[in-house]
């Protein structure tokens, strides 16, 4: 009996306490953000849509390799010696035509692993999140600005150059052969080897001090911020 009474008392007491709390909340300010009408201010580091500043891309494929879901697809064409692709804004020499830079945002897992290894900071995550489409294929964003004609041209040039090189090599071989034949009578001689001019990758091989590292990172952050500001200004001016 006592237990029944105390239970009844407890029940009513806790119910009224609960009702008091809910009643207080009836008049507290709501936390709802009326989304299409109001928008939250997103923090600076927010990870949303991937964006590539193709002018700065050197086609090193580090981002492609870093992606755990393989949503980045890059195609490059070697430039010929007479082409000058210019430099990136970070001072890297561009040596490759980037004829394909497709990012499949349907596959992207927004991990940002691709952004960090980029030597020229050309791949970034931008504050854009309203890009849903009716077709999954529309979520593949091509970033390369090369037209098919340009790609064909680049390929043709590369082939021509390769052809020219091959011919040159053949001629050289032929000449060498002739020379060798000629020299076979005279004695022994060595042919010159053409030196391979390819550089050993874009990454700097530095043991580096921490300070240097930090400085580089700071520089990178600053560049990113500047680019962000630029983009926003552009957006505004467009509006």
């Amino acid at each position, binding site marked *: 009996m006592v237990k*029944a009474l105390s239970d*009844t008392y407890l029940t009513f007491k806790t*119910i009224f306490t*609960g*009702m008091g*709390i*809910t*009643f207080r*909340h*009836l*008049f*507290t*300010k*709501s*936390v*709802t953000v*009326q989304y299409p009408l109001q928008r939250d201010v997103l923090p600076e580091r927010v990870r949303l849509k991937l964006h590539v500043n193709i002018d700065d891309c050197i086609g090193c494929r580090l981002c492609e390799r870093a992606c755990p879901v393989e949503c980045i697809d890059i195609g490059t064409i070697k430039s010929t010696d007479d082409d000058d692709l210019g430099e990136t804004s970070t001072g890297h020499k561009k040596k490759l035509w980037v004829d394909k830079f497709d990012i499949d945002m349907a596959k992207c897992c927004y991990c940002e692993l691709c952004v960090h290894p980029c030597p020229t900071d050309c791949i970034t995550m931008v504050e854009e999140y309203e890009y849903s489409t009716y077709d999954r294929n529309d979520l593949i964003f091509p970033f390369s600005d090369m037209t098919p004609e340009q790609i064909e041209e680049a390929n043709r040039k590369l082939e021509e150059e390769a052809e020219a090189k091959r011919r040159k090599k053949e001629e050289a071989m032929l000449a060498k052969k002739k020379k060798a034949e000629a020299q076979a009578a005279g004695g022994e001689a060595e042919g010159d080897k053409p030196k391979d001019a390819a550089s050993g990758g874009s990454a700097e091989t530095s043991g580096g001090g921490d300070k240097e590292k930090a400085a580089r990172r700071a520089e990178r952050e600053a560049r990113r911020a500047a680019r962000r500001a630029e983009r926003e200004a552009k957006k505004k001016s467009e509006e």
Partner: protein
Amino acid sequence: MQQFLESFLPAGPVVVFVFSIIPLMIILIYALFAIWLERKVAGHIQDRLGPMQTGGWHGWAQTIADLLKMIQKEDIVPAKADRFLFKMAPFIAFAASYAAFVAIPFSSGYIGSMIDVGVFYIVAITSLLSVSIIMAGWASNNKWSLLGAMRTAAQTVSYEVPTVVTILSVIIVTGTLNLMEVTEMQTGNAFLGFLPNWFIFHSPFMMIAFVLFFIASLAESHRVPFDLPESESELVGGYQTEYSGMRWGLFMLTEYADMLLLSLVGATLFFGGWNSPFGSFMDGPVWGAFWMLLKGMVLVFVMMWLRWTLPRLRVDQLMNLCWKYLIPLSFVNLVLIALWEMIF
């Protein structure tokens, strides 16, 4: 009211039809409003806003939009269901709660039917609701629905006892079952000069009777903390699981109509029905309807408030509460009220 209608309408079936359609209009408009209110109450209790867009001002048209959507939906009947019972159940459910409104005095000028056994009629006709729910649960041929239906059967049968006994304690005071007469007995300011002559202030035991009635009516209308028949986190949707579209909408309508019905019965029995709380001020048939619905809506609001505060009981605890607490208490209360009546 009937005379008023007869003054400009041809007599006969048309008047009867118009006369009988009035509660339906009230139920429908109330349901549209109450579902919107429920969403708003839930939203604000949970620090949200609730519907805001549909219709412009605070999403007032949300329920109308939902209604239109439900009407357009495909009427799905499960392949292995008992088609006839499955299709009939929502109509019987709604018919039961609609029919009960006939004995409610909405104002001094309007009551559907002046039946002398009004309260008894309401109690009897609402029992049909549990029949329809068992029909729905059984006909769905779904195990979850069946569980929900069995729970409903047990719950409704049990909770009818305390409901009736608490109603009986009011009947002891009034001596009549006619709700119009019950209301008329509560006119005026009697107690201490300023308190209205409502039965809730009649004696302390009346207050206990009201609390018991309110708890029992929560269970009767399947509201939290007694919403076991449709408890969505346990039984998926209980007897509603297989229903969709307008048939489901009818069950929803029934639930809200039931809430209003029991709130109005509570208002009539304990809060003076269509009587103004300020004596003769703001009195009259039209104000009467206003007061009646306002009192009903306040009780409905409390039901909503409870719903968004409390967890749900378990089925054995529900029975425990009913048979071990409510029924003995209501009987003791009945005796005490009878004694109070004899002494004073």
